[in-house]
């Protein structure tokens, strides 16, 4: 008699896909299937619940369990309402910065300076498309003070220890006219958040803490 590993579908924000894929590879989560939604939904959180619903609907009865790699992400509980209909779970917290930094550390960062603009590795890599073009600063650079006038610093929550990425994040801060801080956070807090939602069960060797 053979036992079957329950199949798990992870519906994820595209901004988390790289980190999830890395953890899946390192952790040997062969039973986890990844299906991503576009990262640009971040800019229109009201569209997230229905986009997730469409994925849940198409996955219906095909998996033993479904987890959604989103936090509340500005949906103000509307994502949770959709998940409840399908018996799916999501990651804890209000937004992905909290996932990467860990709730306590993120709270301390925000308390220390509410005017902090956070960059993940993904955001640092796609800064032009998601921030500059996303806010139309490429067309209207004069709007920069309207968007960022109250910000004081950029904090790069660095998942990877990459000098090139750090330099890129620093350049993002320079373009916004803000001070720059790099906070190496690794993948540990994110992996723990996934584990709390039942995704992944063991830490693979070499996974940065």
């Amino acid at each position, binding site marked *: 008699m053979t036992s079957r590993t329950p199949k798990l579908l992870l519906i994820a924000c595209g901004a988390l896909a790289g980190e999830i894929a890395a953890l899946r590879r390192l952790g040997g989560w062969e039973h986890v299937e990844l299906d991503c939604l576009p990262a640009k939904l971040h800019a229109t*959180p009201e569209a997230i619940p229905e986009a997730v619903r469409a994925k849940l609907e198409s996955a219906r009865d095909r998996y033993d369990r479904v987890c959604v790699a989103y936090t*509340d992400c*500005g949906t*103000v509980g509307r994502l949770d309402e959709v998940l409840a209909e399908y018996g799916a779970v999501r990651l804890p917290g*209000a*937004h992905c910065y909290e996932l990467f930094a860990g709730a306590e550390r993120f709270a301390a960062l*925000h308390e220390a300076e*509410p*005017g902090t603009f956070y960059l993940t590795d993904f955001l640092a890599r796609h800064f032009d498309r998601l921030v500059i073009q996303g*806010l*139309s600063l490429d*067309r*209207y650079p004069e*709007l920069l003070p*309207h*968007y960022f006038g*109250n*910000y004081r610093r950029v904090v790069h929550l660095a998942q990877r220890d990459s000098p090139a990425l750090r330099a890129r994040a620093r350049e993002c801060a320079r373009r916004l006219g803000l001070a720059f801080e790099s906070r190496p956070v690794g993948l540990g807090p994110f992996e723990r958040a996934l584990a709390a939602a039942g995704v992944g069960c063991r830490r693979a060797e070499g996974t940065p803490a």
Partner: protein
Amino acid sequence: MSKEGTGEEVEIVLAELPDDELVEQMHDDMYDGLADEIAEGTRILLERSWGADRVLQEALVGGMNAVGKDFRDGILFVPEVLLAANAMKAGMEILRPILADTGVKPVGKIVIGTVKGDIHDIGKNLVGMMMEGAGFEVVDLGINTPVEDYLSALEEHRPDILGLSALLTTTMPYMKVVIDAMVQEGVRGNHVVMVGGAPLNEEFGREIGADAYCRDAATAVEMAKKLLAPRSAGIAASS
């Protein structure tokens, strides 16, 4: 500017337009976020002996209302609204001292601020500007405003309305902290409380004990007038 359908560049000289066409052109310029043109149009109308209040209502607020409507309908987006607001601000800066000198009684007073922990003020600033355009006296407490500052501003300025703004789901619960403190201090009944911000909705407004949730700046103005009407009627009846 190009003449419609021809692609031919035509220089429009604002000073040469009759009043109605000038106002119409200012609405177009507001829509396109042309601050210099709005300032110029404002000066021209004042030179033609228009009252500051009429310039404000017909040329500036009228133009901004069209922008607000298209924003609500998903035709315009935040960057375009910000550019239009900049243009309106250019006109307002010319009109503000003149309006102050006329001694016209404001239709009401609002204290407004972004709640503690939140530094976003685009929506709040739009509301403040549109409320000012509608004849309200606006006291802006700025961003990251703790409950103590709201309470002392209520005592100092005795506004008709308190406006609370938040952009983050993590900071919007602080609105309830402010409203609860008002109840505790026994001043809740003295002020209309309006709340707004991208993640909010009517249900949230009701749950935290606000009088109104306003989804955008134009709605805030309409709501403020509507909610103050019974108060004004009461004052008129008792005087």
